[in-house]
């Protein structure tokens, strides 16, 4: 009965919120996976996907704040959310460690997102039952 076996997923998000639908589709998938008794091993933000980890998004009040919604999901289910360090540094996402290292005027990474290398993706890809990608579409 494979339906009741608990499986693990690594989700890779490469599309930015308010530019693509990738973060919301990924969240719908993640919620359904958890409801079915599976585990999200980790969420890896790559390329433009790192913008999802911004603490400074302020969309209109009648629109979903996807960064906030994802942070809440990660916290509620103890899922690590990792932004690729190379993508993050180029695109202006920094935590306090990177702020100090590169002498930047601030930090804007939203908790509980962390910054780490592509090794996190490689590990997820090896360990999880499935690694799924959520790209920008059209």
């Amino acid at each position, binding site marked *: 009965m*494979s*339906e009741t076996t608990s*499986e693990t*997923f690594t989700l890779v998000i490469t599309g930015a919120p308010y530019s693509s*639908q*990738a973060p919301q*589709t990924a969240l*719908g*998938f993640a*919620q*359904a*996976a958890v*409801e*079915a008794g*599976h585990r999200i091993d980790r969420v890896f933000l790559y390329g433009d996907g790192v913008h999802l980890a911004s603490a400074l998004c302020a969309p209109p009040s009648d629109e979903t704040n996807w960064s906030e919604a994802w942070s809440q999901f990660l916290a509620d289910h103890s899922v690590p959310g990792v932004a690729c360090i190379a993508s993050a540094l180029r695109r202006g996402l920094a935590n306090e460690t990177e702020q100090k290292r590169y002498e930047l005027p601030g930090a804007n990474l939203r908790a509980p997102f962390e910054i780490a290398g592509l090794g996190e993706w490689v590990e997820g890809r090896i360990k999880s*039952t*499935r690694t*799924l*990608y*959520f*790209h920008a*579409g*059209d």
Partner: protein
Amino acid sequence: MTAIKTLHILNKSPDNPRAAKCLEMVSEEDGLLLIGGGVLFLATGNLPGAAKVFALSPDVDARGLGKLKWSSASAVDFAEMVQLSLQAQRVVSW
């Protein structure tokens, strides 16, 4: 339970060159799951005949295609998308 070799998840519209390549690489033993702009293939109709075709309901409804008759595809929700991704031997996100 349907046997699926590769599940192709396509979120590109029929105009996108990646969509054409995806359809080229779908075999008869594969499944094709249309999400995002990919559901617009239900409007153009030029889908591969052989493979099993699925379409994510919320994306279909958003694009006003909920009332179209599409005999060639099955509507799925996120729970079924999760199941499909586990059933298939491998998943390719286009």
